[in-house]
């Protein structure tokens, strides 16, 4: 595990709120506003999606966001400019698929050029949904070289040797996938979440739970169940999509995002207070 992690600090004082948006959805400018609104709303870490044409791990909500972002002209290079243009306090994590990382630069040097450039613009970590631990060594090495975190997703089905292999390589936090399936906002809280958190209890890395979190209430229950952070994507993108569809002003949508962010932050805080079982943030 990398010992250069800075992201873990975000878990230091209470449960972390980790929103996800697709960069450039529905346009470069609007997307900047939205990300900044989430930052104001209390984001500790922001997962910024760099859109890939074949997002096999995403449900319909994020797929559509990706289509909007691609149609708006988002590319890896624009993405890095986007990050440079952002004014946020939260740590930034880049969420994308491996082919975009792999192709960057000459395409002959593997993931290194991408990581180097990401580090230069202030990205602090990666989530790569189609890169299991087994294929991650080249990216892990590049991250180590430039001091970035590599976050892995733990699925409800991840166990035993494979879990070990992943925990050997993870840094920053683990992304606990709350249920089987693709991303997307749901109305219930999965039983699988508790079981996964239990399996992870022995590992000293923050556990952020995602997939399907929608309301403050969800956030509360997830944190009460032992999560160190909540990751929220589709529920926020629904707000972006609604605003886009209805032609609402960018400020209006940004305000709605900020409001929802606060609701989620408050819910998470309630969850932490209720059970008092907020895990002590580890010092790396």
């Amino acid at each position: 595990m990398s010992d250069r992690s800075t992201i873990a600090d975000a878990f230091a004082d209470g449960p972390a709120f980790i929103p996800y948006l697709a960069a450039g959805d529905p346009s470069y400018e609007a997307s900047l506003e939205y990300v900044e609104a989430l930052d104001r709303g209390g984001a500790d870490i922001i997962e910024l999606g760099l859109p890939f044409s074949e997002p096999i791990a995403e449900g319909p909500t994020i797929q559509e966001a990706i289509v909007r972002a691609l149609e708006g002209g988002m590319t890896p290079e624009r993405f890095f400019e986007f990050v440079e243009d952002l004014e946020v306090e939260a740590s930034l994590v880049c969420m994308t698929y491996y082919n975009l990382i792999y192709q960057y630069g000459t395409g002959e040097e593997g993931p290194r050029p991408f990581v180097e450039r990401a580090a230069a613009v202030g990205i602090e970590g990666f989530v790569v949904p189609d890169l299991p631990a087994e294929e991650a060594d080249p990216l892990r090495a590049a991250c180590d070289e430039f001091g970035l975190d590599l976050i892995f997703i733990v699925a409800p089905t991840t166990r035993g040797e494979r879990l070990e292999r992943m925990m050997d390589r993870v840094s920053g936090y683990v992304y606990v996938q709350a249920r089987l399936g693709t991303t997307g906002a749901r109305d219930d809280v999965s039983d699988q979440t508790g079981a996964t958190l239990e399996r992870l209890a022995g590992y000293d890395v923050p556990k952020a739970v995602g997939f399907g979190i929608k309301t403050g209430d969800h956030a509360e229950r997830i944190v009460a169940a032992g999560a160190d952070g909540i990751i929220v994507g589709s529920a926020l993108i629904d707000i972006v999509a609604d605003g886009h569809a209805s032609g609402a002003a960018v400020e209006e949508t940004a305000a709605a995002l900020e409001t929802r962010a606060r609701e989620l932050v408050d819910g998470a805080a309630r969850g932490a207070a209720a059970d008092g079982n907020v895990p002590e943030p580890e010092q790396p």
Partner: protein
Amino acid sequence: MTDPTQTTKPGRTDRPDGSFGRFGGQYVPEALMPALEELEDAYGRYVLENEDGFMDEFRARLADFGGRPIPLQRADRLSERYDREVYLKREDLLHGGAHKLNNALGQVLLAKYMGKERIIAETGAGQHGTATAMAAAHLDMPCEIYMGRTDVNRQRPNVFRMRINGADVNPVDAGRGTLKEAISETMRDWSRTVEHTHYVIGSIVGPHPFPAMVRDFHAVISEEAREQCLDRLGDLPDAVVACAGGGSNTMGAFHHFIPDEDVSLLAVEAGGSSLEVDEAAGVAPNSATLSTGDEGVLHGARTTLLQDSHGQIMESHSVSAGLDYAGVGPELAHLVETGRVTPVNVGDRVALEGFHRLSTEEGIIPALETAHAFGYLHEVCAEDGAIDDDPLGETIVVNVSGRGDKDLETVIEKTAEMGLEAAPDMSVFDGGLR
């Protein structure tokens, strides 16, 4: 089934994650990894080691239900026309009308051995979907098929066949609505349902162990063809020609010939309307991946792809839905890289001419996919020139990967559009299929 002389070991390849040289791997969401492990284990035991007599049952069902062995037929008129010996491996006679059943039956049976309760699959031309639906009905497994909206519209008869076999067909609206999108969507379903569902992937693509396993199920093609050549000709052919989409058809036809270094192996891709690429629009008007693509990661594997300079996957195009895919299987990419397989391609027009030529001269209506192989054959053989210099030689086996019943409508439309000369007068077809 396994062959000690092949360049990569069957099942387990150079690397423990199942690579073929630089290609292969398991680039999938974490949630699927345990299923791949489980599948790898099942593949090793049932397929490679014939545990519980799996392979015996598979072979028996391929024979009785599928109609194997499939004949190797001399194409009398093409042989005469080209002054060479042209042989046809008649996979179009396999139940369902394409080579696809070899794999579909193998995987559905394997899913049963693994205790799975539900089958999903993607389909492009609908051939893999119909094969899977047939195999699932035969083995009493519920089955859902994902198919791009464009393909649903251009391969209607196959949609109906799947439904009539009791499968659900889910149209996929994303992207251009072809095979690429259907695969992505099926992977999403699998991520949700992986515990009780098996994903029957339709070509030698995807994460390990799919490429090796699908190849092994299809390898019966070359196993038979090689034996038939030795029996009938007393010798191996000079070349084996097969069309390539993802590559299951080529690898099935090539596998047992790989150690026979004097046998040329030709993979014919779809040249579409042009080999040029529209970077800005993200569109390739072809799916000639092996000729024009480069390395990347798609649908679980590192392989050769059609992608733009950023790594976004291109929308491929071909008159034949079954070749219309932006990637190829990692093993085929590897064999091309090592020079063992030669990639070639022909465009829509040449393929259509090949379609009509085989239909009127040999009495076999090929799938449009297959027609590409005959288009290529003609391009080489109709040239004047020394046979010694060309890539095919004297004795050529062409894999007739499927029959063209599904393509009648497209052919009628395109034949009129292109004003093809060799084609029969199509004017009575005005009004289309009804």
